[in-house]
């Protein structure tokens, strides 16, 4: 009976101490983390990618812009602008080169895709696009950043691409049709004479 009472007292004490320790740890952690998140402004990582394998004159090029908010606050009034594709060299086929995203929450990302079509062939340096955003709600000045640069790319002439990849089925068919008279006609004439005289020989043999 005495032993049972002693055990109960020890158990209750231990339970109380353990609980108290856990509560203290949780409170300290909450205070520490809450304090830090509130302090970190929005920070955007911006990448620009060309999704095409081949860059061909007169054919679509797909550009993907990705924004990652690695800060602790939402990025506001995010304005993306790509002024590197001049209208004399490129035509925008889909999407827009200037977009505004109202809000990118912390720890999330946003993507934007533009389809352009080069009107000329040659080497082209794909440089960075620009982004500006407010790092927090009470920020007075917008932050400006640049995307990654895909670098120099060769836009090949359409003829080269077509020469390499097009099956040209119709052209081959036309070639076959044009070649037929030069091949079929002489062969048919020779064959008819050959069979005629071979038939004469076989007729005689049969007799």
């Amino acid at each position, binding site marked *: 009976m005495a032993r049972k009472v002693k055990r109960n007292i020890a158990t209750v004490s231990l339970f109380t101490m353990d609980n108290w320790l856990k509560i203290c740890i949780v409170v300290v952690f909450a205070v520490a983390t809450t304090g830090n998140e509130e302090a970190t402004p929005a920070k955007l990582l911006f990448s620009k990618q060309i999704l095409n394998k081949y860059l061909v004159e007169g054919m679509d090029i797909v550009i993907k812009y990705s924004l990652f908010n690695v800060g602790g606050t939402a990025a506001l009034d995010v304005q993306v602008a790509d002024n590197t594709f001049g209208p004399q060299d490129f035509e925008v086929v889909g999407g827009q080169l200037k977009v505004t995203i109202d809000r990118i929450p912390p720890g999330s990302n946003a993507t934007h895709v533009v389809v352009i079509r080069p009107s000329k062939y040659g080497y082209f340096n794909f440089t960075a696009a620009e982004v500006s955003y407010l790092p927090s709600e009470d920020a007075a000045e917008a932050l400006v950043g640049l995307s990654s640069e895909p670098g120099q790319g060769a836009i090949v002439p359409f003829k080269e691409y077509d*020469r390499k990849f097009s099956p040209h089925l119709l052209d081959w068919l036309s*070639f076959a049709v044009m070649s037929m008279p030069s091949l079929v006609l*002489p062969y048919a004439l020779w064959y008819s004479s050959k069979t005629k*005289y071979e038939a004469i020989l076989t007729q005689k043999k049969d007799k």
Partner: protein
Amino acid sequence: MTQKQKALSKEEEILLQDFSRNVSTKSNALFYGNAFIVSAIPIWLFWRIHFMDLLTSSPLFLIITCLSTYLVSFAYKKTKFVLKHKVAVKREDAISREISKMIAEDKKMNKKEKDERVLWKKNEVSDYEATTFSIFYNNALFLAVVIGLSFFLLKSFSPSFNYIFSVGLSSGLIALLSTGTK
């Protein structure tokens, strides 16, 4: 004496035709015409598939086509000459029987005239078959070699050089092969 000379000269004429490498004007026209057509056909491939500009490359097309025409017709003539004798040997019996059947009812014709007629017919048939087969064989070989060279061996060359070498080498090759005796 004069008639004998005429008869001899007629036989000689047939024999000369048989063994001569010379072709008649009609055969010449046939050979050059066919050679020109088959030499011009690859221009389509180079224009449509290799994207050679027709107008700017027209002098090149003209020169190479003319050269190829000459070489292909040379190949026709040589191949025809070699084939003619082989065909003549093969068709001799059949032609003899055909002529015999034709003149069976004609009692006036003597053996000499019959032989002349057989010889003439043999020459005609062997000439015809050798001509047609020579054209077919050389055309097929020429086109096959052009395609093989331009789309496999020479595909990394620029279109102009590709055209010059593929058509030039093909016609040269068939001309060379035709000079063989077998």
